[in-house]
């Protein structure tokens, strides 16, 4: 492994271990989104506790609208880890319910799930380079009793001297991949031979083009067949594909080193307003 990837790995392992070893394991959960960052996070959890099994539970917040390839992948992973699947019974529809969909099916669902299982510490695979407000995040991010983020008064932090404490009024979100970039994730996946959902690689599929990008075809509009891949995975109506010939990890890495765009362009969620991610995070989103 190159020294810089090793530094990123070291940093991630340290925070994972420090949080888990200094808190009650039953109050810790790892958010598992099925995506590439979650695959890396899961791999790091295996390494962190080797040769012992992972001592904490994982949880997938389902919306019912993920790609079928994601569900197949999740079912395979569920055999290796203690995975909770939680879905908000409200069951909104992204095509017809608009912006409320993300709030109810993701943010509210997340809060319901934390409450239901009494989790006080939640790990996530978010990275600082994903989005502007995330560039301000801590490794250990304190949330108030309502799970809200206060971006203007965060706990000062000096990694690797983590403050691992919380009170009965606060909970913690932990981001071990804070300093990783999209390319780092792929370089690590390559080096560690980590399995990811196959639609991250170029494949032929029916897609339709609308003003915000290339989307998966529906029954009403079968669109046209294109060779595409996904840079991020989420709910299929909100996740754009990119035209791509990258069929292998090396192809993906080369493509990313040359691409003119960030991965954000494929996510509708960030795009509704300039500061939408910040607002979502303040309201309790990851």
């Amino acid at each position: 492994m190159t020294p810089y990837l090793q530094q990123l790995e070291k940093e991630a392992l340290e925070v994972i271990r420090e949080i888990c070893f200094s808190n009650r394991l039953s109050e810790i959960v790892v958010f598992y989104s099925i995506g590439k960052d979650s695959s890396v996070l899961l791999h790091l959890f295996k390494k962190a506790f080797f040769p012992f099994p992972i001592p904490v539970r994982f949880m997938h917040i389902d919306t019912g609208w993920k790609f079928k390839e994601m569900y197949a992948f999740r079912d395979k992973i569920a055999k290796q880890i203690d995975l909770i699947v939680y879905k908000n019974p409200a069951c909104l529809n992204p095509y017809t319910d608009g912006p409320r969909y993300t709030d109810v099916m993701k943010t509210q669902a997340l809060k319901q799930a934390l409450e239901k299982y009494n989790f006080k510490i939640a790990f996530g695979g978010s990275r600082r380079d994903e989005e502007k407000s995330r560039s301000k995040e801590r490794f250990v991010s304190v949330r108030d009793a309502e799970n809200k983020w206060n971006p203007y008064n965060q706990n000062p932090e000096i990694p690797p001297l983590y403050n691992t404490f919380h009170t009965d009024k606060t909970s913690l979100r932990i981001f071990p991949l804070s300093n990783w970039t999209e390319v780092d994730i792929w370089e690590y996946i390559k080096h560690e031979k980590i399995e990811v959902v196959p639609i991250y690689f170029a494949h032929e599929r029916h897609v339709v083009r609308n003003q915000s990008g290339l989307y998966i075809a529906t029954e009403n509009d079968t669109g046209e067949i294109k060779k595409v891949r996904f840079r991020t995975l989420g709910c299929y109506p909100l996740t754009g594909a990119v035209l791509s010939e990258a069929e292998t990890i090396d192809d993906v890495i080369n493509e990313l080193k040359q691409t003119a765009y960030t991965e954000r362009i494929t996510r509708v969620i960030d795009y509704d307003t300039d500061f939408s991610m910040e607002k979502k995070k303040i309201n309790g989103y990851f």
Partner: protein
Amino acid sequence: MKRIFKVICCGNVDDGKSTLLGRLLFETGSIKQDQLEEALASSIKTEETAQPDFAMFLDGLAMERTKKITVDVAHRYFTYNQIRFHVLDCPGHEEYTKNMATAAACADSALIVVDATRPIRAQTIRHIEICAMFRLKQVCICLTKYDLLADKSILKQKEEEIRNLLKDKDFSYTIFPISAVTGYNIPKVLSVLENFAEQSADTAEKNQAIIFHIQAMKQLDGKCYIYGKNLMNRPIDFAEGETFTIYPTHQELTVSAESASLPLGCIQPTESIDVNTGDCVANCPLLITNKFSHQTIFFEEPGNHLLLKHGTKVVRVVQLTDTQIQTDAPLFINNIEDIKENGFGILIDEITKKTIGCCVFTRNS
């Protein structure tokens, strides 16, 4: 790609930090098309310039952009000549000094941005003090807004003033004029940072010290696994047969052959040993003490119940004066003058659990 090099960018508010960093990101090709379009859309463009406001790449929070101030540290990454730079853009406002201090504590070097057109500000002096407190070794001082300077002879005088501020500090530094807007001397900033990174990599290579603070010890099939974090800023490979001292017991630990196949941050000793979370494994002398000469930056007014965390150990503060901290149990430290990485701790309020200060352990104050 080689190792990661951490640089803080600091200086007084409005002196031009965010613009400089934005420019560095831009010049190194780290800004993608969609970020550029977004910055162009929200930049207030002046007459003829179709150039984006480079600062727009940095500030991330809504209030920061509307009020044009930086509240919290922004973390950005760029690669230049195979070196991965992690830049920490610090706030320049007095009330956010705490965020600047935490960034300084984990940085390898500093870019200090000084507006060449204005008198030197209190916050610039404060930032220099904080860089010195955390023993940053290399500092690059950029006298920015060179393009606005009608009378270039002012530069000499500015430079002299800054040299005076740095006189009694243990920095190796360079100082030169730049303009983040026209691009003047921007390549020089990059080559200075590259030099810093090379020097720092050389020093790290030569430094064989390992200070491994224990997070947990687990047993399986009669074998013992010790998990921890090495504070020395590099991953460790424990070599078979290497010996270490365990603090505070002074027992000896010999690394087993199996350790080579364990993940980073995990060692297996040849024999079962008695260690606890908070103990330390090191190959260099550490001080075992519960009395510390210190210099502390408080982020808020300290309450009566404080914890001090250093490495992986948390102890209670029993006495705190301007010059000394006394705790209810010993920590395994070095003075910041000797080994920077093992020379500071954080203060946590026992009730609210907030991090309320950062202290460096000094030889004598």
